[in-house]
């Protein structure tokens, strides 16, 4: 069993929460659990309730999307030191992609209901979590725009 101290240490060491105040970290620990996913298994599926978010500790996963009659497309890979999932922050709290473990995956999961409750009750925690999420969301949005440009395709003359 992973001890509370260990969860706190994992949170501390992960780049996403690096430097977080000890009091806020203690609140986070209460919503956290260590999880392991075998390669090829899904962490979550498109359309399912977004009831968690994850810090990736080890391994990598593919963010996939699919449309009927078309092959599955991987839109991004996420690896060690990164986070996955923000659908838990925005109603109606449903995943918009599949997340498949490409290798054995170790993540720290956070129960979304628990975390949203604590963020509502303690705006300092709420601000701290959002402050860390926003740059990641910004980076992902910029990356998606670049991918849409099809940078390496041939230019139209």
């Amino acid at each position, binding site marked *: 069993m992973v001890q509370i101290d260990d969860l706190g240490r994992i949170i501390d060491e992960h780049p996403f929460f690096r430097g977080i105040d000890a009091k806020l970290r203690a609140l986070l620990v209460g919503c956290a659990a260590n999880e392991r996913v075998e390669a090829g298994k899904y962490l979550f599926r498109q359309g399912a309730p977004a009831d968690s978010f994850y810090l990736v500790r080890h391994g*990598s996963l*593919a*963010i996939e999307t699919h449309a009927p009659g*078309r*092959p*599955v*497309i*991987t*839109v*991004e*890979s996420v*690896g060690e030191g990164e986070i996955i999932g923000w659908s838990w922050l925005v109603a109606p709290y449903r995943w918009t992609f599949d997340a498949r473990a*490409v*290798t054995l995956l170790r993540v720290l999961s956070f129960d979304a209901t628990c975390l949203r409750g604590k963020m509502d009750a303690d705006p300092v925690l709420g601000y701290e979590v959002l402050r860390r999420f926003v740059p990641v969301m910004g*980076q992902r949005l*910029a*990356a998606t725009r*670049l*991918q849409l*440009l*099809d*940078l*390496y*395709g*041939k*230019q139209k*003359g």
Partner: protein
Amino acid sequence: MIALPADPMLPRLFDVLKVKRELADTFTLELKSDGGGFGFQAGQFNMLYAFGAGEVPISISGDPGKPGTLVHTIRAVGAVTEAMGRLKPGDTLGVRGPYGTPWPVEQAFGDDLVIVAGGVGLAPLRPAIYQALANREKFGRVSILYGARSPEDILFRKELEQWRGRFDLEVLVTVDRVSGNWGGNVGVVTKLVAKAGFDPMDTTAFVCGPEVMMRFAVDSLEKRGVSTDKIHVSMERNMKCGLGVCGHCQWGPHFVCRDGPVFHFDEIAGLFSVREL
């Protein structure tokens, strides 16, 4: 008899020794001339003349330490490059050059070296990689960060795999899109900049790829703390003379053929995001 000065617009004739298909639309030509070897510096280009089709600027993609043959990697995008794609061993090609500014590999000695390439932009950087590897002990960490459209579009794949097998080199590859089996990174090349293990305080970066990609790559290098006076980019503009005479390649106050193609990012930062240029 008085020897007349060689006409700089007159191409030297080279024979095609080998043609290597790299990707569906990209190939490498190995060329040789009776007139001996071809010295050049990493990052320089030649004006290649396909008889009956026309002349275009193409970077040299071979090893500057092996000037015996001349190597060019070309993506077929239009009339001239497509004509080059039809060349076979024994055919002839006209060559003028080498022209332009090189990657400042020696100036980077003592630093960590980060090479960021996108698509066929790996070709103009390959000579710099060869030169850096030949002087490996003169650098701190060396990272090669490469982005391609899909796994099928990864240029020099075998070589990248060999480089990745070395203990003194970090090679990270990402692709923009995947359908099917691929265990590697998916996402834009700028994401690799955040992951790579270099010390931004002492890093020189060489960046080559489509202009938008270079803009974002420079941005992410700056975000990591790499100083802009140590970032170098290679620019492309249409060219005619290649000699700084005709003005065809003018870009703001610069002639890309003469003042570039490799620019110090600081020199051109103001022009880089101007849409009309």
